[in-house]
């Protein structure tokens, strides 16, 4: 359980995941933020107005999946690195998972990395499609991973090969 081991349960996740039907229409943000803490940068970062305004700073983010276009602007503003973008339409067999990443080395497009789940366990391999690391992101890179579709709700981290 999250409060005991830092790993969100399937029940935790069920409350924040977009419906299948929305996933089938392209990239969308998933805010894996399960605790009422005083924090609201995600709301201010969203140009689509897809994160509901906070009436109390301790509220959890509520993503309007219809307004969200999966741009990922919120990802590098979240102090908890808790927002991910998933694009289930990437190809017939693969989905894209965009991951906020603050470790070195930052991988390069084309590289194969080890895909990791929320518990820190290796679940397979992923291909780096693109790396966004602009000045506006302020040292939180966003790494686009292509993963087998059945892993798109599992993969939330990765390890660069040959680096511990």
């Amino acid at each position, binding site marked *: 359980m999250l*409060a005991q*081991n830092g*790993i969100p349960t399937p029940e935790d996740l069920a409350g924040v995941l977009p419906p299948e039907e929305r996933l089938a229409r392209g990239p969308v943000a998933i805010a894996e933020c399960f605790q009422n*803490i005083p*924090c609201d940068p995600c709301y201010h970062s969203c140009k689509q107005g897809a994160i509901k305004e906070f009436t109390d700073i301790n509220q959890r983010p509520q993503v309007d999946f219809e307004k969200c276009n999966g741009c990922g602007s919120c990802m590098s503003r979240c102090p908890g690195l808790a927002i991910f973008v998933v694009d289930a339409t990437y190809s017939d067999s693969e989905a894209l998972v965009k991951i906020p990443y603050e470790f070195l080395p930052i991988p390069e497009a084309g590289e194969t990395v080890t895909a990791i789940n929320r518990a820190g366990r290796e679940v397979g391999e992923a291909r780096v499609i693109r790396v966004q690391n602009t000045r506006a992101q*302020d*040292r939180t890179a966003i790494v686009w991973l292509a993963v087998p579709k059945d892993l798109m709700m599992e993969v939330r981290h990765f390890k660069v090969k040959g680096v511990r």
Partner: protein
Amino acid sequence: MKHTEIAIVGGGPAGLAAALNAAKLGARVHLIDRNDYLGGQLIKQTHRFFGSKEQRASERGIDIARELANQVTASKNIQVMTEATALGYYEDGVLLVEQHKKIFAIKPERLIIATGGAEKTLLFPNNDLPGVYGAGAVQTLVNVFGVKPGKRVLMVGAGNIGVIVSYQLLQAGVEVAAIIEAAPRIGAYWVHASKVVRAGVPIYTRHTIQRAHGHREVTGATVVQLDENWQPVPGTEKEFDVDVICLSVGLTPLTELLWQAGCRMVFVPELGGNVPLRNEHLETSVPGIYVAGDVAGIEEASAAMMEGALAGLNAAASLGYTTESLGLDRRNILAQLEGLRSGPVGEKIRKGLAQALL
């Protein structure tokens, strides 16, 4: 003897905000810090802060420190004394400060104490071996000096500091074997915890360190599970091969000057130990002495900055300085502080503060 309108002891987030806000109203300020830089603990906070936009959420502590320190240095009303240690405060209202082996007597009309906190430690066999560190020291080594404290770390304490320092160790290329926490729940914000767990660091709640191993330095640690009465469960011992044991078991306010000044103090566990009683203006029981930040109760840097701003405004206002927006500015900061403390994670602070009001 130097005379000044406001002396501020401590150049961390609270002291910097106090100096800027007092100077903004026109007060002449001496800002005293024992380090050779300003910013206090902010200078090692490489992670993004929580909070609201007005409280600079999502910015990194290191950047906030730089910006506030630049503003302070540029202010004509603020005289900065670094490498200067406040040694004592005496009945006649004189603050003694040692700087570069010289003693200065400063007589301020108002005094703001923003000395922050000190780390607590933990008793266990061999806790005096080299390799047993406080989390603050580890963070200084890694984030200020670029020095790895060792190869493999056992982190004791899953509060925000323990979890954040673990993350920063990983960023520095140091392995973290595990984070252990005696309490039944993770104290850190869960998003921080999830971040280190997916990076491969397990968190064991209801676990404590039984002993450190090693002769000349740490070579390992024994960890044991605790039952519901916080007693070790025999047979649950786990061995960790680590060369660093990092203690992140809480902070306590650094209140020596307040005791010496005769401020009425109260023991409030929720605020980290003995804290000064204060009124809503952050003034202590000794008129003219204000407090802000961790010295008034262990909290977050964003709260320290807001308390500092309030103490700075209030101290300057008590000297007659004012602006048209003073009332509004104060109310805004108070409303932000209240928002920050209003949620479930602020419950402990609210409970603590309720016991510390004059």
